C-alpha cells in the first residue's frame, strides 16, 4: 500500500458509507471500490473494518440489506438507505460541516 494515502479519520467511515449508499444501493465490494474512487485514492479504508461497520449500520436500521443479482450475475448483498438512515446522514453531514468550520476558524485565528 502506498503510504501517501492517509487513514480514514475515526468515526467518519459510517458517514461515508451512508453517503455512498444514499446515491444508489450497493454491495460491500462496490462500496469499497467507490470509497476508493470517490476519495480519489487519498483515503485509505481498511477493508476489514468495512463489514463490521455495514452490519452495525444495518442493526441500527439505518441500512436495509437484500440479496439480489449483481452486475456480474452472481447474488450479492445490496445495502440501501432507510428513511432513518437518510435523517442520520443529514445530521452527520451537518455536524461534520460544523466541525470543519470550527477547525478552519482555529487555523485562521492562528495566522
Amino acid at each position: 500500500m502506498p503510504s501517501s494515502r492517509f487513514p480514514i479519520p475515526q468515526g467518519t467511515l459510517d458517514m461515508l458509507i451512508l453517503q455512498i449508499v444514499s446515491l444508489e444501493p450497493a454491495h460491500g465490494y462496490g462500496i469499497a471500490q467507490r470509497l476508493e474512487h470517490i476519495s480519489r485514492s487519498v483515503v485509505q479504508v481498511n477493508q476489514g473494518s468495512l463489514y463490521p461497520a455495514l452490519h452495525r449500520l444495518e442493526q441500527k436500521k439505518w441500512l436495509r440489506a437484500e440479496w439480489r443479482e449483481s452486475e456480474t450475475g452472481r447474488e450479492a448483498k445490496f445495502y440501501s438507505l432507510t428513511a432513518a438512515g437518510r435523517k442520520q446522514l443529514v445530521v452527520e453531514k451537518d455536524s461534520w460541516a460544523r466541525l470543519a468550520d470550527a477547525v478552519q476558524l482555529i487555523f485562521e485565528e492562528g495566522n
Partner: protein
Amino acid sequence: MIPQLTNCFRRRKLEGDLDRELRYHLDRRVSDLERLGLTMEDARRQASLELGGMTQIQEEVRDVWLTRWLRDFAYDIRFSARSFLRTPSFTITAVVSMMLGIGVTTAIYSLVDQVLLHALPVREPGRLVLVDATQGEQVADGFGGWNLMSYPICHDLDAQKQFFEGVFCRALTDVNLSTGGDYHPATAEIVSGNYFNLLGVQPALGRVLTQQDDGAANANPVAVISYDFWKTRLGGAADVLGRKLIVNMHPLVVVGVAALTFRGIDVGEVPSVWIPASMSDQVIPGYSDLRDSPTRWMQVLGRLNEGVTLKQAQVGLQPWFKAMLQRNMNEAGFPKITPEEMQEYLHSSLLLTAAPQGHSSLRRILVQPLWVLFAATMVLLGLACLNVSGLFLARGSARDREIGTRLALGASRGRLGRQFLADSLLIALTGGFLGAALAPLAVRALIAFLPKNTAENALHAGVDTRLLLFAFGVSVTAGVLSGLAPAWQSGRRSLVSSLQQRGGTAFGGVRLRKVIVTAQIALTLTLVVGATLFVRTLDALMTKGPGFVTSSMVSFTLAASRNGYSNTDGSRLIRRIDEAIRNSPITQVSAVAGVPLLTGGSWNNPITIQGDMRITTDRAVNLNAVTPGFFRTMGIRILAGRNFDERVARPSGEMGFRSAIVNESFVKRFLDGRNPLGLRIGVGSGPDVKTDIEIVGVMSDFSYRGLRDESEQAFVPFLEAGSGDATFYVRVRGTPESAFQTLRAIVHNADPTLPVMDLRTLDEQVSRSLNTEHMLATLSGGFSLMALVLSVVGLYGVMSFVVTRRTREIGIRLALGADRWSAIWMVLRDALLMILAGIGIGLPVIWFLGRLIVSQLYDVKPFDLTVITIATLVLGTAGLSAAVVPAHRASGVNPTESLRAE
C-alpha cells in the same frame, strides 16, 4: 438490546449470509486484480491481504450481532449445560434442591399474595381507606365482625367532600336464598347505594346498585348477583334480569350481574348477592330501621380525593368526629353510661387505615401465620442456595485441572467467575421453572388447610403473571447467591498451586464449605425449633381439648328467623324439633344452644353484678342460651348450685331471663371468692341495666369461641330466650354419618324449606377451629424435615470430601500406629465442631425470632428449653449420623494402598 436478543435465535442464517458476503467480496477482488494482469495466485494473496484476516472480520461482525458480554454469556450457558449433562447426579441433586426451595417459596407466596397483598380489582384501589374509631366510641350495641360502624356515620362521612370522593358501607350476612326451588344458605353483602359507583365496578349484565336503590326504606326490592352465582346457580341464564330471588322469604328482583373479576371486598367471604341497605329489615331478621340507628353493624370505607393523603383526612376529620360525639350524647336514645365510659367515649378519635385490599377477617386471622410460613420458606430457600453452593464448590475442586488450564491459557478471573455464575443461574432457573410448575399442586394442598367455604370460593391455585414474576425473581436471586461462593473461591485460586497439585485443591475450598455447612445447621435449627414449637402448641391444644365431650357428638344449626318466623313461632319450632330429636332412636342425649361453639364468634356483653355493691365487669362476658340438657349432653359439670328448670320459669307475657349459670373463671375474676349463688346480674353496663337474673349455678370452664379461649362465661336458659335461631348438639348412637340422614329428615318434617346448616361432628368442628395451628405445625414440620435433609446432605458431602482429601494423611497415621478409632474421631470431631458452631449461631437467632411468634403459641414459651433440647438432639443426631459413613470409610483406609496411590 432487543435485536441483539433476536439475533441469538437466527445465528445460523446470519453466519451463512456473512460467509457468502465475504466470499463475494474476495472473488470480485481476485477477478478484478486478474484483469489488471496479476496471476491468479498473486491476485488471491493480494485480495486477502487487503481484506485482512477473515476470522477477525467474522469475530468483529459477531460482536455487532450480539454485544460482547451477551455472546460470552451465551457461550457460558451452553458450556454449563453441556457439562451438567455429563454429570447427571450432581445436576439432579442441585436442581431438586432449587426446585424444592423455589417451589415451596412460590406456593406460600401465592397465598401471601392472594390473602395479604393483592389489591382489589377496582378503580384505583390505592385511594381506598377503612374508617374506624379508637376504643371508647363503641357505646351502642353491635353485631358482625370487626371495624363496625353505624350507617348514619357512613352517611355523614359521605358528605365530607373536601376529603372523600365518597364513603360507602357494607355488611356481610348469611341468608336463606332460593332461586325458585330449594333454599340454601348464601352470603349476602348489604351495601350503601354508592358502593358500586365508588368502587368503579361495572355490571356484566343489566345494572349495578345505585343511590336510588338505597332510597326509601323497604321500597326497592332489588339485588345484584355475582358472576359466579349467575354461572353456577342460575346456569348463566340469559334472561336472568327481572327474575325473582327469595331472600329470607322476601322476594328481590335481579337487576344486574356484577363484573366477572369482582368478588366483593373481602378476600375470604365472596358474596353471592348484593342488596341495598334500604332492604336491611328484610334481610336481617330481628332488627328494624338499621339505617337510622346507632347500631354498629357495617364496615365503612371511603375513597380519598385525588391528592388527599390519609393523614390529612384523618386530622381534618377529627373536629367533625368530636362534634358528632357531642351531638350523639345529647340525643334522646343515647345509652346511659358511667362517667369513666363517658370520658373514654369523648376521647375516642377517628382512625383511617389504607385499605387497597379491602376488609377481610380471613386476613386478620392469617396475617401472622402466613408471614411466619413465608419466612420459613425463605430460610428453606436460603438452605437450598447454600446446598447448591456447597455442591458447586465440591464440583469446582473436581474441575480444578480444567480451571487451572483455563487460567494458564489466559482466561481472566472475572471471566471464570462469570462462568460459575452462569452455572448457578442455569441450575436455579431450571429448578425455578420446575418449582413454579409444581407450585399449583402445593397451593392446592395449602388451601386444604383453610376453612372449606373460604377455600372453595375465594382462593385459587392457578399461576398468574405476578406469581411467575416472583418465581423468576427468586430464581435469579437464588442463582446469583448460590454462585457467589464458588465465584469468590475461583477468584482466590492460585494458578501455581492448582497446577502443582495433582487432582488436589487448595484447602480454602474446604474451609468455605465448612462455613456453608455451619450456616446450614444454624438455619435448620431455627426451622426445627419453630416446627417443634408449633407441634407442641397443636399437641397442647388437642390434649387440653375443648372441655366438653366431642366423641359421638353431632351438631347443626337452624335459622328459623331467616325463614320468616317470628320469635315466638321460631322458638316453638325449635322446641318441636328438639322434642323429635330427643325421642328419636338415634339419640342418646341432646341439647340446644343459641350460639354455636368453636366458631370464633360469640354473643358477648359486659355484665352488671349486684352484690353488696353494684359493679360492672371490666370486659365483655361470653353469653349463651342453652337448654337444661346442655350440661349433661356436653359432659360439662355443674360444680355448685343447680341446673336450669325444665320449664319456662317466668310468667307468660313477661320478657327476659330469670336465671343464669356462670363458669369458674367468671367467679374467679369478678366475684373475688364470694359465693356466687343467689347474686343478681344484668346484661349490659349502663346505670339503667336491671339486675334481675339470679345466678343459680356454677359450671366448669370449657372453650366457647375457640380452643384457646379461657373466657368468663354466663349462660342463660334457652327456653326463656324465645328465639328461632339455634344450634343442636346431639350425642348419637352408632356412627355420626348414619345420624345425619335422620336429623335432616326430622328438620325436613318440621319445615321442608328450612336449610340444615353446618351439619357435622363435633370432632370435625374441633379440628376446623384448629385450622391455623394444623397448618403451622404440618407445614413448618415439613419444612424443617426438608431443611434437615438438605443440611445432612451438605454435611455428608463435606465430610466425605475431607476424608478423600486426607486419605494419605490418615494412611500415614495408621501406618505409624494410630488406631482406627482415632481416624473415626478425627472425622467426627470435625462434624461435631460444625454442628456445635451452627447451634451456637442459631440459638441467639431463635431467641430473637421467638418473640415474634408468641401469639401463635399455646402453653409453650418461644425459648422453651425442652423444645430447644429436643431440636438440638434431633439435629445433632442427624448430623452425626451423616458423618458416620465417611468416618467409617476413614477407619477403613488401607495404609499401603493410600501411600502407593500418591
